[in-house]
């Protein structure tokens, strides 16, 4: 889930229509919340306060309920991120396979704290719960693509490609 190059306005008619369709197609309005959040995040890069309130009013949930979901699901972003998001699994299988080293290396490369946008603007590193790739631990996700196992060299190469904007999902 990389950041969009242009941010769609929340009043954009086609965006609103799309969101309303999702709500209409759902058996109860509340049930559409995760899809609504996905679409909003695609369009705006992350869920800002206004997007959160829009999602709440479309689905009839209170803003607090929407924030509960946003903070529970680690794929939902509540802060702006870099061009690419690197989610490094730190759950148990990956932890045992050296996830901490991978995480430290990626964070050092980004030059900022976890979750922050690197100075180059290209990268945000986030620790993440198990992504279901335990058999290929340590695993990570670059935007929507899962990769593993990752070692220091592959990570160095990956980071270089991301910085040079030449990384392509396979």
């Amino acid at each position, binding site marked *: 889930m990389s950041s969009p190059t242009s941010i769609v306005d929340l009043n954009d008619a086609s965006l609103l229509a799309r969101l309303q369709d999702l709500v209409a197609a759902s058996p109860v309005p509340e049930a559409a919340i995760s899809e609504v959040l996905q679409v909003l995040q695609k369009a705006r890069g992350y869920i800002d306060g206004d997007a959160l309130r829009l999602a709440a009013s479309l689905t009839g949930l209170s803003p*607090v*309920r929407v924030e509960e979901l946003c903070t*529970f699901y680690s794929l939902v972003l509540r802060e702006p991120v870099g061009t690419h998001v690197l989610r490094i699994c730190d759950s148990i299988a990956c932890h045992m396979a050296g996830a901490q080293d991978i995480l430290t290396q990626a964070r050092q490369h980004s030059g900022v704290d976890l979750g922050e946008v690197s100075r180059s603007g290209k990268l945000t590193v986030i620790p993440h719960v198990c992504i279901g790739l335990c058999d290929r631990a340590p695993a990570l996700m670059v935007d929507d693509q899962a990769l593993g196992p990752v070692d220091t060299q592959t990570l160095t190469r990956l980071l270089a490609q991301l910085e040079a904007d030449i990384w392509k999902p396979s």
Partner: protein
Amino acid sequence: MKHVFFLDGQEIPFIPGQNVLEAAIAAGKNQQIPYFCFHPALGSLGACRQCAVKMYAHDSKHPPRITMACLLPASDGLQLVTLEDDVHTEHREIIELLMTNHPLDCPVCDEGGQCHLQDMTVQTGHSVRHYSGPKRTYRNQDLGPLVYQEMNRCITCYRCVRFYQDAAQGEDFGVFGSRNRVSFGRLEDGPLESPFSGNLVEVCPTGVFTDKVFRHDYVRVWDLQQGPSVCPHCAVGCNTTPGARLGTLRRIRNRIRPEINGHFLCDRGRYAFPYVTANSRPLQPRLMGETTRQDAVLRQLASRLEEGRSGFLGSPREDLQSNLGLFALADCLHAPFAAVTSSWAEALAQQCLALPQAPSLQEVAAADRIVVIGDLDSIAPMAGFAVRQALRQGARLTVLASSRTELAQKGDYRPLRPSALRDQVAQLADDPCLQGGRFPVLLATAETLGPSGLYALRKTLEKLPANARAGAFVNRPNLFGAAYFAADGHTERLQQALRQRKINHLLCLGADPLGEDWGAGTWRTLAPGLDGLTLLDMVDSETARSAEALIPVAAFPERAGLFVNYEGRIQAFSPVYRREALVLHSAVQGSGFPEAAGGLKHPIGPPPPLFWLGRLAEMLHLHEAWQKRLDFYLHFLCPERPDPEGPGVLLPDTIRARFEIAAVPATRTVTPEQWELDIFRWYGGETLADTADELHSLAPARGLRVHPDVQAVAATLHGPCGDLQLPVIACAEMVQGVIAIDQEGFAELGLYPGDPVEVSWEQRQ
């Protein structure tokens, strides 16, 4: 049949449907099973894993296993054990896990000494933390003036969010995050919006949520003087436990009363108590505005009464005995007496009393068809809480009101002008909103519905199935007690006597006839005929400021008394502490204590009204007759004195029946073109509560609330007793054609809810 299971070989009785932990707690065996996430009113969750017990099967095929007591339904003959090593280890290790991130700050934590986590930690024997990594820490939120948050102390039992979202159905509090970064709070900093937010302090088993008002004048709880009391801030009469220290009241906690408030209180009940410590509270007698001595003010009053030209005015804000004491004195002197300040309020009280037995809040919570008339949360919040509990069980709620209140958003809302409420209520018997239920309940805010509306409510009830019930609520603790001796036309006779100059002095108890009480406009026009007014009260008011003599009285937690709640339930309260008052040396006979040194600390604060009335009776040589009458009235209304620790006693139906024959209240007609008045209140507002700073800081702005289609910045309302100018507050939730103002506004205008009103709008520039 008696049902029992066995815990460590001891018989534990249970009611089918209970879980093992619930039954064990009810049997007083909570020493054996530590627990966190279970709460008697919130149920089981199985989140903390603390309540382990070992279950032995009846056969030899199944080995014994450890299971959670809060999730295990109690069943006959169940064999459970906690006294084995593996159960102990489980208890100790779970608490060690829960304590992983807990700060070592018991010595500076407000919860210390009443902390469930502290108790359980000691009980299970966990004392050494093996984890040596960094602790997870949070940034705390500012949740407003009532509740303090220290998130690092959380053990994720989820009680707070289950209370706030599920039980209180509040929308501005939630649980955020996942894994070991879960936190509980608001979307952003700001005051909690629920009228029940203070219960977080009691449901949280740790020091995350603590009482922010108590914090200003904190003492350790083992140093508190506590006792059984009853909330004086509305007609529900929730049971409370005030806590005091060194002669001042520090906090109010809930006292469990299943029939009424269960485990909870509203924020008015919990946070209005600083009325007793407010700087404005009168603590010493005042004569013509000057502080004076007890005997001086009594002598003055006695000579007034000896003239035989006094009238007596009681109050639904004062307790039953004090009102009866005043009534008895009036009786001895053959003087006119009224319990309420206007004929409208008198009719209202009579119609409230004429309703058949009202449902308890416990019964409201079990209703399946509910009609609420008016803004119930703003008058009697815990009644609104009971409605929410019924909603959770699938009850159908219909709200008739002139504004889309929070409760209206949870059910079917019928927007109605106040004058239309009465007609709608009259037709409810055939209304689909009450059809098909087992147990229909109608709950009205008495003032919005008015006397004729309450009459219509009673007539509707007669047409509904016999088990249908109705209750009417006011924000006074004792309307139902004060009104029992208010016969038809009492108030009118009192005012008539004043008009005809038969009396020239008024002795008032807990009333504010020149300020915000109903009919104050009329009293103000009559005031010039008064040579003097004497007031016995515990709060500063317009009347207190203009009284010739002001006699301070003990606040409710400082004395014993009786309140009659909306059900006609007579509840007793006990003195919890003695107020200490600073008395100026000049006011203490023979004291040479220098004023410059701060005066003399008088060990005893103002005495209760009955003390003053008794002394007066003595001075008038009427004591015996007065006492006899007082005892007789008290025995008549309340033959059996209720125990403050018990559920109270209900007034007999025979007394209630007296009021069914009261005059049928007149109905007012309002044309659709006319502006109509409704009353605006908020959950924290009430005469005493308005002097409590922290709670009052949350009060909505004063103004005239009206639908936004009116383009005006201000307006002047014209009433028979005067004009009132107020800023306009546009309120999208309101019905068009309705103007909502506070009670003070009504008093100034001399009008009542549902009355038409003349308005001059000041247009936007």
